[in-house]
């Protein structure tokens, strides 16, 4: 049921699926320069992602997960290689690659509603009428069960609620790829489980393409179609890609005893803690 795939998954994907991939990360290098010293963070990263796929990226702290996500978002530029979204090179940020930031990044001076509405107004200014934009804003808030708090400011709602609004804001842009940088990292276990279920439901319903960074092995296995495991930096790359062939909809309680789930969990854990132990000196 679970097939560990070679470090070059695009060859695999192209063999089985004739249509072109949605997102293609093609031999990407990324290094940061400060003065004379150059630090190589990512080296030869290649990955293709099909439409509707949910891909998690997992790896030790500081290996370059956020850097990779920022490259896809267009917030930073690649040093070598290319990132192609529907065959067009990505070199600047845009609403077709909406980001859910780790610390929600809501604008504190706007209400919950206005935070989402700002994005809706910006993306659909010419396409939707004013009443449609209002309806669409409310629709997305309801999607994450935040319609009731639409007039509150971010300071007045809990961390989990803020993260929900962040997700609603990203979804409201109807992105081609939804990028999430540890979206549940700052939440307690219960809230996290609840929000994971919400995201899973939305993904089943809308069929978004999503890339999610996580530190949590269970979260990765529960949510993903594929798990990308990164090697340790400097010059980190993709160590292994694990395909999670569990049927959807998935239920966290039922999965706890499913052998395929346990096997997937084990192989990610093995990768992280046996073959690519976190080396203190690297960080």
């Amino acid at each position, binding site marked *: 049921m679970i097939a560990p795939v070679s470090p070059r998954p695009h060859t695999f994907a192209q063999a089985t699926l004739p249509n072109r991939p949605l997102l293609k990360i093609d031999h990407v290098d990324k290094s940061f320069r400060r003065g004379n010293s150059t630090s190589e963070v990512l080296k030869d990263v290649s990955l293709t992602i099909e439409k509707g796929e949910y891909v998690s990226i997992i790896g030790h702290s500081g290996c370059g997960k956020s850097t990779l996500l920022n490259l896809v*978002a*267009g*917030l930073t530029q690649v040093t070598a290689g290319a990132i192609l979204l529907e065959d067009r090179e990505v070199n*600047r*940020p*845009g*609403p077709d*690659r*909406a*980001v859910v*930031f780790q*610390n929600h*990044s809501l*604008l*504190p*001076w*706007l209400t919950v509603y206005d935070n989402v509405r*700002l*994005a809706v107004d*910006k*993306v659909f200014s010419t396409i939707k009428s004013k009443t449609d934009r209002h309806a669409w804003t409310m629709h997305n808030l309801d999607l994450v069960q935040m319609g009731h708090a639409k007039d509150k*400011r*971010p*300071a*007045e709602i809990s961390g989990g609620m803020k993260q929900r609004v962040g997700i609603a804001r990203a979804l409201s*842009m109807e992105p081609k790829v939804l990028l999430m940088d540890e979206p549940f990292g700052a939440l307690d276990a219960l809230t996290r489980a609840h929000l994971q279920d919400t995201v899973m439901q939305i993904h089943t319903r809308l069929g978004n393409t999503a890339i999610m960074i996580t530190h949590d092995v269970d979260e990765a296995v529960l949510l993903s179609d594929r798990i990308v495991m990164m090697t340790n930096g400097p010059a980190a790359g993709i160590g292994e890609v694990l395909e999670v062939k569990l049927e959807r909809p998935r239920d966290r309680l039922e999965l706890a005893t499913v052998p395929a789930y346990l096997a997937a969990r084990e192989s990610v854990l093995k990768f992280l803690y046996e073959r690519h132990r976190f080396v203190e000196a690297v960080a």
Partner: protein
Amino acid sequence: MAATASSAPFVDASVTTASASAQAPAAKVVHALPVAKRRSRLSWETVGNFFATVVPPLIVVAILLLVWELASSGPKATLPAPSRIWLEARDLIVDPFFVNGPQDIGLGWRILTSLQRVAIGFALAAACGIMLGCLVGQSDWAMRGLDPIFQMLRTVPPLAWLPISLAAFRDSAPSAIFVIFITAIWPIIINTAVGIRNIPQDYRNVAAVLQLNPFEFFRRIMVPAAAPYIFTGLRIGVGLSWLAIVAAEMLTGGVGVGFFIWDAWNSSKLSDIVVALAYIGVVGFILDRAIAALGNFATRGTAAA
């Protein structure tokens, strides 16, 4: 701070509705009681707070007046004692808005004229200061080029600008406004720039993903994010522009409070000067509090920033 203040009434309301619904049957009567109780307790608290803030300064002022009276009661005293000021300048103290002739009017009228000048100069300074501050905060090159110049110019005292502005404008009215403008603008520029520099990268990333254009970025991100800093600058600026009023009104003459002091000095009416100083102090204090209150109002809810 703003967040707790705005959430407090919300909590209160839910508590009262909860207690009202708990005692359901006689809802109407029960509901009326706790509300009334709460209000009366609140008003007692307000009265208490009022006395706690007003009484101590009154005592201090009384002591100061007494010391002053004693110190300047000797035969060789150069400055008038409070009692003499009361005798000589009583009309100025008790009635700010009398009109006895073209140059014999209450200090309230003079203050209003001065305030009008300050309003024009300060408004110009606020508009230009915020724009320039945004430029300096946003662009590294503008920062490197302009910041040293700003830091140097801001130390020039208001009086030193007088001759140069007279030479430039060849007219007293715009020169006076320019002196106020040039005095007030520096803290506004510098604080705005600091505020812009401190905009978290997260907000910039949000703006980048949304592809906000420069104007939208200015209006939706820069101004609100830097608002607490901008208001600090405005508060310092309004204080400075009020400080510059005497210098500015040496130019304009006429009915301003600054010119009144200059005129009183020339005709050695020391008591009038003391009264005018008190007026200026009180108005400056009110201006400062007004901008602070405006800032608190405008930046409410952004405490988490």
